[in-house]
């Protein structure tokens, strides 16, 4: 291992530990008692004193009684082994700390990139040709970005609260409160999104406000209701026959509604493309643009309907299930999205070839 200590900024707290690592790497061996450089910081003063004196023990065995030196040596060796073990544990902890810092760094870079894009988005006044934005700040979108970040934090807190409550077997009344909070929290999200759709529906449709793994599953501005039901259904057994029937019906009706909305959006895409592409050779496009704007306003409708569908599906789910089942369902949902977000961070942090 190289000694990069000079390359690191001195302000970094890890500098000190790095210094230790370079020493650890120097052919460290648990039996290498002669290595006087290895003095772990947290080893007691007593041991330290004995370490220093161990150098003198080996070459001058003849100076002591034959039995005592052997015991002493054995003790030294044992202490060395112990110290070495502790060193290895510390090294492991340090490496783990490095790994999580790397993850954090990747996360921050992602956020920075998103903020930068958002900044470009906002400051598009100077270059409308490139980003097609009017010369005004889209405050509706910036407001949403901030609110959504808080929403995610609150969501994580609610998941923890649910998990604790379920493990502690709290009463149904308390669980009911948590389930209602969970449902309300999603309703808040849909309200926020309705405002954002008015500000710029493309922003919601693009999924830029979500993490990359979530975006893979993106459907008309958010999650697919049927996908959520798939996640929840595994967590809520056992179901009564009546519940089983109702859950099947819910899965079928949400799937049908999704298909209908998808086909509506496809038709909109087709219609928009035809409109924009009509009479391309003349170079005159004013009328087409006006027509296209009207069509894009219809897209806002679709995002609103999709969110409406999401809300209805969640509400029906709560109606069908018992309080405890609904609590497990919300926990499963929350954990599922949390993992997708974590997956996105891991993906961003994964080692890549340089250059």
């Amino acid at each position, binding site marked *: 291992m190289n000694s990069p200590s000079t390359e690191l900024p001195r302000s970094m707290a890890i500098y000190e530990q790095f210094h230790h690592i370079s020493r650890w790497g120097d052919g460290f061996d648990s039996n290498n008692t002669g290595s006087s450089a290895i003095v772990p910081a947290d080893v007691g003063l007593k041991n330290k004193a004995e370490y220093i004196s161990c150098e003198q023990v080996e070459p001058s065995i003849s100076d002591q009684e034959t039995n005592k030196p052997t015991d002493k040596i054995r003790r030294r060796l044992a202490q060395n082994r112990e110290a070495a073990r502790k060193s290895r544990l510390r090294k492991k902890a340090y490496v783990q700390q490095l790994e999580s810092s790397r993850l954090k760094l990747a996360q921050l870079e992602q956020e920075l990139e998103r903020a930068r894009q958002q900044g470009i988005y906002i400051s598009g006044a100077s270059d409308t040709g490139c980003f097609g934005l009017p010369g005004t700040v889209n405050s509706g979108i910036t407001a949403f970005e901030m609110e959504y970040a808080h929403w995610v934090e609150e969501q994580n807190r609610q998941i923890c609260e649910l998990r604790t409550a379920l493990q502690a077997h709290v009463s149904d009344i308390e669980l009911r409160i948590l389930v209602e909070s969970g449902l309300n929290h999603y309703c808040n999200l849909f309200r926020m999104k309705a405002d954002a759709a008015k500000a710029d529906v493309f922003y919601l449709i693009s999924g830029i406000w979500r993490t990359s793994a979530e975006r893979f599953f993106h459907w008309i501005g958010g999650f697919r209701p049927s996908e959520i039901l798939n996640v929840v259904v595994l967590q809520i057994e056992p179901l009564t026959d009546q519940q089983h029937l*109702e859950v099947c*019906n*819910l899965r079928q*009706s*949400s799937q*049908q*509604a999704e*298909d*209908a*909305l998808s*086909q*509506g*959006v496809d*038709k*909109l895409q087709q*219609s928009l493309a035809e409109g924009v592409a009509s009479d391309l050779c003349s170079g005159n496009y004013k009328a087409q643009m006006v027509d296209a704007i009207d*069509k894009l306003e*219809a897209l806002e*409708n*679709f995002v609103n*309907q999709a969110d*409406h*569908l999401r809300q*209805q*599906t969640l*509400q*029906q789910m709560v*109606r069908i299930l018992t309080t405890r089942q609904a609590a497990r369902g919300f926990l499963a949902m929350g954990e599922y999205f949390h993992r997708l977000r974590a997956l996105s961070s891991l993906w961003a942090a994964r080692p890549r070839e340089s250059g």
Partner: protein
Amino acid sequence: MHCQTKGSWGSYMPTTAVVIGDPLERIERLASENAVVIFSISSCCMCHAIKRLFCGMGVNPTVIELDQDPRGSDMEKALIRLLGASPAVPVVFIGGKLVGAMDRVMASHINGTLVPLLKQAGALWL
């Protein structure tokens, strides 16, 4: 006329005597002629979505395209008044009774009330 339809129209129905050719009256008449009636505009994509929803369920709705009807624009205005909101379309009637726009239809499908309503009107079997 307003007596028998008061149930479906609620307070939207005019209580004064109506003229023949009143758009609302025409809407009501068209709505009662078939089990499932959708008022639509052919270029409207949300209307396309609602048509696909019913077809996907195995229902064969009657679709009235307002842009292809000579009195379409009058009916469109009447529907806006009826719904109390824009846009006028799509709007769905089942068994002659007003169900509503896309959000009401989807909500009733999700909460399980749409299918029984369709069966009752004879639009769906099994």
